[in-house]
């Protein structure tokens, strides 16, 4: 199993030596996951907040649907998005197949239920006492909303971090929609899949470590934000 050690050494070599293929895959990964995270947070936080904050008929059913969508397999999302983006599909005119924005659409579908469900849970879990105390302080309806959102910020951040983890690590969508095209849509995960299928296990491990390093960077940034 000496390829594990070789992988660690190779990871360092790729990063320090500035291997252009690796940096291209890193850039593709960062770009596509940023697009997907921006879209899923913009849509997911308001939706999740509404789902957690308001009482409305069908709320339990809506929650059930969102929780079920947490189990969407990435290959299945990839296949569905491919069906829509294919030139023979309903959105074929947009030319998004084999592009990073196309992959980002799929990853947004992957991340959205995570953001909605965890945001809703964060809002729900603190609402009871906060609501009464805010109301007793004479808060208006708008202030009540803003106060709840502010107090739920750590839960929402956790939702973002969790969704980011899923988006960064998925391979099914990137492979099917992106096509693993060198210099264009090859992300770190599809590169790992390719190297593994070529029998280059050490290279696969090296790329996996590179991905972990990026994730570490992202999470360090979040924890930096969290400090007062």
């Amino acid at each position: 199993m000496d390829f594990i050690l070789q992988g660690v050494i190779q990871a360092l070599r790729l990063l320090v030596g500035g291997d252009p293929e690796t940096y291209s895959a890193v850039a593709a990964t960062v770009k596509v996951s940023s697009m997907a995270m921006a879209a899923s947070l913009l849509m997911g936080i308001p939706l999740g907040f509404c789902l957690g904050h308001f009482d409305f008929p069908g709320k339990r059913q809506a929650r059930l649907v969102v929780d079920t969508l947490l189990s969407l397999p990435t290959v299945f999302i990839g296949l569905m998005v491919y069906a829509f983006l294919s030139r023979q599909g309903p959105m074929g005119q947009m030319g998004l197949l084999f592009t990073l924005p196309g992959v980002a659409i799929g990853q947004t579908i992957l991340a959205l239920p995570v953001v909605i469900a965890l945001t809703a849970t964060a809002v729900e879990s603190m609402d009871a006492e906060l609501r009464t105390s805010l109301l007793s302080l004479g808060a208006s309806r708008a202030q009540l909303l803003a106060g709840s959102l502010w107090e739920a910020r750590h839960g929402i951040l956790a939702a973002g971090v969790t969704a980011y983890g899923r988006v960064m690590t998925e391979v099914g969508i990137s492979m099917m929609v992106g096509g693993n095209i060198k210099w264009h849509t090859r992300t770190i995960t599809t590169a790992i899949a390719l190297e593994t299928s070529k029998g280059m296990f050490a290279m696969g491990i090296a790329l996996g470590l590179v991905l972990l390093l990026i994730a570490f960077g992202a999470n360090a940034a979040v924890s930096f934000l969290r400090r007062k």
Partner: protein
Amino acid sequence: MKRRWSIGRLLALLCVAAILGLPAAAAAEGEVLMMATTTSTDNTGLLDYLAPHFTEETGIELRWTSTGTGKALELGRNCDVDVLLVHAPAAEIAFVEAGFGIHRRPVMYNDFVIIGPAADPAGTKGQGVAAAMTAIADQKAVFVSRGDDSGTHKKELSLWARADRPVPERESWYIQAGQGMLTTINMAAERNGYTMTDRGTFIKYAHDKGGQPPLVILVEGDAALLNPYAVISVNPDRCPKVKGDLANRFGEWMAGTRGQALIADFKLMGQPLFFPDAE
């Protein structure tokens, strides 16, 4: 509300993210030809070797996605790629006859070999294909199949037919990997079993193992083991968005003297991986 996230910090983070995202956006868009091909042309490095020559001589950028032949043909059927480089003649001819593709040009071949442990428990060495497959089935020796509807998988299925054997679909010794060729070879090596592979991938595998691969070639040279590759343009009459001109230029280039010479020159461990055979 003592804790506040400073806006400055947030902006700084966004800037870092934006800078990281920039380099890949800078690439200029020339004429781009999109190809679907099989794992064997990509895994062996043939396309990495040919593509820069093609781009230099024609100004066309070649991009490819490598999958099994089954999926490559499906991508062509759905008009999602401009050109195909695949190796499953029967399926290719059906594809062209159904009107999905035009200008099918044979460009090269390599051949398939049956590999297995050097000890050769089923006694296949030097036999013909039919006899070797029969021996493997009789001995219930482990055989790893691609099992992914690729050109290689289709070839293997035809060998069972040639040996007058049903495909051992549910036998415990018959493992259907559902993965690419090198992964399949690695699985066969782990299980000390047999598999059928294209010679190019095997040479690459042997090279990666430092010339001392755990599995060796046992059956080769049978006419039934030839593996011809062809370039097919996706039919622009069916798929208006497809770049028919560029696809034809790629086909002509591959079948022309320059492409053919480059294919013949592509070697690993001193052995040619593919043999040009355009008419």
